[in-house]
């Protein structure tokens, strides 16, 4: 579910939606989501001072608050 959420948001932020990929690493207590976007789009998902990345993480942790499992978003570059 969180994977679809991150994909959805990331695709709306970038110029190249085809370059968006999310890899899920399930841990025992937490899930790591690795977000990959086209190189030219990295700034668009991070934003100035990480403002956009922070917003995405905030939305993600709200979405995962019900399951009680921690979700960590990593943006690969």
């Amino acid at each position, binding site marked *: *579910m969180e994977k*679809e*959420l991150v994909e*959805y*948001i990331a695709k*709306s*932020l970038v110029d190249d939606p085809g370059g968006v990929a999310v890899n899920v690493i399930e841990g025992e207590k937490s899930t790591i989501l690795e977000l990959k976007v086209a190189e030219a789009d990295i700034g668009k998902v991070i934003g100035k001072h990480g*403002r*956009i990345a*922070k*917003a*995405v993480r*905030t*939305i993600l*942790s*709200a*979405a995962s*608050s*019900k*399951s*009680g499992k921690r979700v960590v978003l990593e943006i690969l570059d």
Partner: protein
Amino acid sequence: MSVKEFEGRNEEEAINKAIESLGLDRDEIDVEIVETRKAPFLFGGGRVRIRVHLEEDRQPGEDEAGDRQPMDNLRHQESRPTRQRDNRRPRGDRQPREGRGPRPQPAPEPVREPLPAEGEFENSMVEYLQGLVERMGIPGRVGIGFREDRKLGLNIDTPDSGILIGKKGQTLEALQVIANIAASRMKEGAERIIVDTQNYRSRHEQSLVRMARQTAQQVRRTRQSRLLEAMNPFERRLVHTALAEEGDIETASEGDGLYKRIRVIYKGPGK
């Protein structure tokens, strides 16, 4: 929603007691002053009784696994009149409110039905935010809340507004950041998008103004300046504006960056 009453020597003390015993932030409770009894002498002996409205949907949403309200409650919540107790206090009326009898009931705010989306841009924005909320696993309906000069209000009607609002409104802010980027990508020079749910923004604004006035009262009484919590520029402007009406009080921002703190200062009568 439940109601609890607290008492203190003054408004602040009563509110602090409420916050302590409920374990909530000032932001998360809605306070109504039920009774103010002025002290017979200059100091001490006064009593203030307050009523705290606890709204399930404003409790810290983070740990509420499985505590979801059925969708049926939505109608009920929506038709709840918004309390606008700030407006009851005409400016300059700083006299104690004793002997006024029961507080007049505020006129219920008419239920605002969402406006139908018009045109391609509005439709895509509603659809976009709807898709986002759905992927968060939150049931809800996105509609147009208002249209204003260069602003478009998107309202999320949901029984899970606590989760969408987040601590101090940070999840709502995050949704708004993302929605604004999406908007500017959809249309050049797009309107500014304001994301709201269950009237959180107007309730929050009212509670900020109320808090500012209470602080002003206290500063006036003690002659000691007070530093408020860090606020964003919009919130600070609300506080500055509210306290500009109080002639003997001055406000100044302190700190750096986007989030600054306001100091409330007593400057005395006249001038």
